[in-house]
């Protein structure tokens, strides 16, 4: 479902784990001409084995270029290439406007739980016009208010990115283990677009602190046999992620 959001010609900013699987699935299934790149500076590597970190030596083999962080982030800040980038991000919390927290739970100075921090996530969310967010659907991960706003979504609603001086952008969709949420073009608020077979919209609402519009929700088509075979046999044959 996430892979279907990636199109030929897109430059895919890729993290680890499920985002890597998504990017590789898109390349094998629906967008063979998409380009995978990493914040460490590797662009369009062969990816014969699935990398487990963005600095994994597997991102370096057969790349168009191996450079560094400055070049990778400039690729996204520069509008010529940046406008083609689709980001894939994860986080500990997401709010109704698609803002992300990957820094901490509790007070910043001495938090209850510390997470890794932005890494390149805030940079991606600041620069590129489209990004996908992967989340596990749990109430505490969809709070009314973030403990820390690490990466900008639509901030506090329509026009907020522009007021703060950010480039136009914001998340395209939030994809979870229960369904997929998108963002209303006018209000910039999250709404339920798809729920998976066997899941109800009620169940999804029960797993979030804030409520979302479910009037537009439809049941998602399950992955086809061909898609599943590609995921299991070509993308992640050793079950490192899936």
């Amino acid at each position, binding site marked *: 479902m996430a892979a279907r959001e990636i199109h030929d010609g897109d430059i895919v900013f890729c993290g680890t784990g499920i985002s890597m699987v998504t990017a590789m699935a898109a390349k094998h299934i629906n967008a063979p001409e998409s380009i995978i790149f990493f914040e460490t500076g590797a662009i369009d590597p062969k990816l014969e084995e699935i990398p487990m*970190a963005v600095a994994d030596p597997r991102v370096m083999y057969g790349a168009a270029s*191996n450079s*560094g962080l400055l070049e990778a982030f400039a690729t996204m800040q520069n509008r010529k290439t940046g406008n083609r980038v689709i980001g894939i991000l994860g986080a500990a919390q997401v709010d109704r406007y698609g803002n992300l927290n990957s820094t901490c739970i509790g007070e910043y100075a001495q938090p209850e739980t510390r997470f890794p921090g932005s890494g*390149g996530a805030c940079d991606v969310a600041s620069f590129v016009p489209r990004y996908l967010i992967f989340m596990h659907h749990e109430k505490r991960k969809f709070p009314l208010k973030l403990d820390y706003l690490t990466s900008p979504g639509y*901030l506090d609603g329509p026009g907020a990115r522009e007021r703060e001086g950010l480039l136009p952008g914001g998340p395209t969709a939030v994809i979870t283990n229960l369904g997929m949420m998108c963002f209303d073009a006018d209000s910039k608020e999250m709404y339920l677009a798809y729920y998976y077979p066997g899941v109800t919209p009620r169940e999804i609402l029960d797993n979030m602190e804030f409520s979302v519009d479910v009037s537009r929700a439809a049941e998602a088509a399950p992955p086809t046999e061909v898609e599943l075979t590609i995921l299991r046999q070509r993308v992640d044959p050793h079950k490192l992620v899936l």
Partner: protein
Amino acid sequence: MNSSHDKVMTLEEAIARFVTDGCHISIGGFTVNRNPMAAVYEIIRQGRKNLHCYAHSNGTGVDELIGGGCISRLEIAYGGNGKAAPTCIRFKLAVQRGQLQVEDYTNYQMALRFLAGAMGVPFLPTLSGLGTDIVRKWGFSPGMRAKHAELPDKKLEIIDNPFGNWGGAAKVVLVPAINPDVTIIHVQKADKNGTCRIEGLNFADIDQVKAAKNVIVTCEEIVPTDQLRERPEHNSIPFIHVDAVVHVPFGAYPSACHNCYDYDPIYFRHISHFAKDDKLYTEYLAKFVYGVKDHEGLLNLVGKGHLDTISADKTTGYAIGLDRR
């Protein structure tokens, strides 16, 4: 700095000379790759304290320095280390216990800060971070910053674009330069004067080196100067920036060194297992860090047979089919 004299020395000597208590330090590499681990373990063995560390995403090395009790202040973008430690474990514990003062930036901001240091300008602009808590929440208070002459007065600053809307931006975030007292990197090849060739991604190593007052390079191989100068365009760092060159085979272990060896997923899991518990971690340090004389001692403990399993394939630069579960 300067001249082309022989800068080769032992790791013990290089750390003793250039890494002092309370100094400002940065290390090269990124999460599971090319962290100067031999140097990190030597810093812990020599008992350095109160280091102020600058990191973008150095997973392995920074977490061990924190665990070893060497770091008291940390400016960082990302404290994670791949599958074995999605959040670096000693980092996480130290922050939650209030034992470590942290200032968060983004990876691009940290890379720009090193570049500013390397260029000799006080700051550089970016469009990243506007509207976020990275600009609103400061780990180091203005009062604390005012007391430390070696820290800028502000974490960062947002200004209106002084060129109007030129470049399509109304505002920019300015991030202050970093000039560490010492930067330590690990590379595949260097000559005795310090000219380096980095294979694969350079991450932010080159600017971290050029921004620093002192530089230690550890390397897999010391090669003749003439060999590096046959293809100067492939060299990453000229000798003028480097103060010490140390020959340390497997010097990035257990992180990877492209074309030489892969990261060691088993040893990473081993560290993570011990890192979760203070008592276990103390035992781990006693055996695998304090219990060995030097990096070779650690490699002997790990065993040559095991190291062979992460040996890099010559074509791909990594260990093909390595069990990474």
